């Protein structure tokens, strides 16, 4: 345990593993071929589904999202939040689109936009958007963009993707990622809770209930599917990253999957070690949204259980439930060594994404 100097944040190199750029529908349409372009620009019905939940409570929480659209916005964010290396993604979860061909074309369009606007003329790091509706098309897209040095992983939603991400039909995606040394990043979404858990989405009466469960349920389902199908055993060189569900669910899952595995090992014979070992060897978890225990010592124990080799920092900026660096750093500075802190903020994401920075 150490007590670092307050205000020393700026002296630390920080990798932010989850920064979203906002792309409005008119803008992405320009990167689409016909008939997909017109299906977005000319349709009287919204093509992008919405759950209708009021996430920002009638404007009580400011909208940082709508204006976070250009490289200059990211640079301003870097200065304001003291983030040296933002790993940016195009946010939109592609599993929610019912038309597989539209999803595939959107995948390519988001990546073209990411390269064209954000990566080609700037030194940002980015994640390639992947739609899982047609796994062979996804694999081809991974091969297409993997040569770009600034692409450091692939970005898959866990909110509407069907079948579940570990299903063997998705193996071409994991093989392509592994062949190209790209990490696989999973990201859940509150608005898309309606696709995975429609009964609960309909039954809940306020967004408190949805937001409490949404990302965690989605990521738990993804992790369970990955382990249950032996994906980390099939691709032992692949790293898996989980964003935006906080960290408390991970110890629960490691321990519970160990228990179920030992009862039902012959059901999952691809696994040659305990689920916890696979998670600790190949999985990485971003901090945001970090839970808020009433007693800080509880968070200390949680972070210790995960360990600095698995834990990374993320802001989730510009979304309305972002974490400032201070949220993570108050625990790191108060309870952990400078070496552990450096791992969480820098070295662990460097390892997770194979960053050359």
């Amino acid at each position: 345990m150490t007590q670092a100097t307050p205000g020393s944040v700026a002296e630390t190199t920080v990798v932010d593993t989850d920064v979203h750029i906002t792309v409005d529908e008119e803008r992405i349409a320009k990167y689409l071929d016909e008939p997909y372009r017109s299906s977005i620009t000319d349709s009287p019905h919204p093509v992008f589904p919405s759950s209708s939940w009021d996430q920002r409570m009638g404007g009580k929480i400011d909208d940082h999202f709508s204006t976070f659209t250009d490289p200059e916005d990211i640079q301003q964010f870097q200065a304001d939040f003291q983030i040296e290396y933002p790993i940016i993604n195009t946010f939109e979860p592609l599993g929610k689109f019912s038309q597989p061909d539209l999803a595939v074309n959107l995948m390519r369009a988001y990546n073209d936009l990411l390269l064209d606007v954000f990566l080609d003329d700037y030194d940002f790091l980015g994640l390639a958007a992947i739609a899982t509706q047609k796994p062979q098309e996804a694999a081809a897209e991974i091969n297409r963009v993997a040569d770009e040095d600034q692409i450091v992983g692939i970005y898959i939603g866990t909110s509407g993707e069907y079948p579940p991400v570990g299903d063997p039909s998705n193996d071409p995606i994991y093989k392509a990622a592994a062949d190209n040394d790209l990490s696989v990043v999973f990201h859940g979404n509150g608005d898309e809770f309606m696709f995975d858990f429609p009964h609960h989405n309909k039954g809940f009466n306020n967004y408190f209930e949805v937001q409490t469960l949404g990302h965690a349920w989605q990521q738990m389902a993804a992790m369970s599917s990955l382990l249950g199908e032996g994906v980390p055993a099939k691709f032992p060189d692949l790293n898996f990253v989980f964003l935006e569900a906080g960290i408390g669910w991970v110890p629960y899952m490691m321990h519970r999957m160990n228990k179920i595995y030992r009862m039902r090992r012959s059901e999952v014979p691809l696994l040659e070690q305990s689920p916890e070992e696979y998670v600790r060897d190949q999985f990485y978890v971003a901090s945001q949204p970090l839970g808020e225990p009433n007693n800080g010592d509880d968070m200390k124990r949680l972070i210790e259980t995960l360990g600095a080799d698995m834990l990374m920092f993320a802001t989730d900026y510009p979304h309305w439930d972002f974490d400032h660096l201070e949220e993570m750093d108050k625990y790191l500075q108060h309870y952990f060594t400078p070496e552990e802190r450096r791992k969480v903020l820098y070295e662990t994401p460097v390892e997770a994404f194979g960053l050359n920075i």
Partner: protein
Amino acid sequence: MGDHTIAAVDELEDGDRKLVEVEGREIALFRVNGDYHAYTNWCAHQGGPACEGSVTGTAEATFERDDLTVSLDWCKEGEVLNCPWHGWEYDIPTGDCLSKDGTRLPSHPVRVENGSVVVSL
């Protein structure tokens, strides 16, 4: 430590087992492929009566990365003991737990002597 005769040599066929009490401990004698194995009836998980569980085979899998196929094989038929409480698997010939590395059934030396099966505790 003492020697105890727990069965006659012609008493068990391959695949049979016999549960006996020796010095207050429940000991299970298994015969697999002509060999005898003796274990304490105690699962390393939660102390369940592992040696009273079903004897089956188990699944193995191999993954072919080139064509992304998984091959499932049923193997070790008659050699896998399943604890009846929670299904922890033990390899009867070695006593090794298949469910958790580094865990095993408490084993006891067993030998055939003058037509008897003798276990040392």
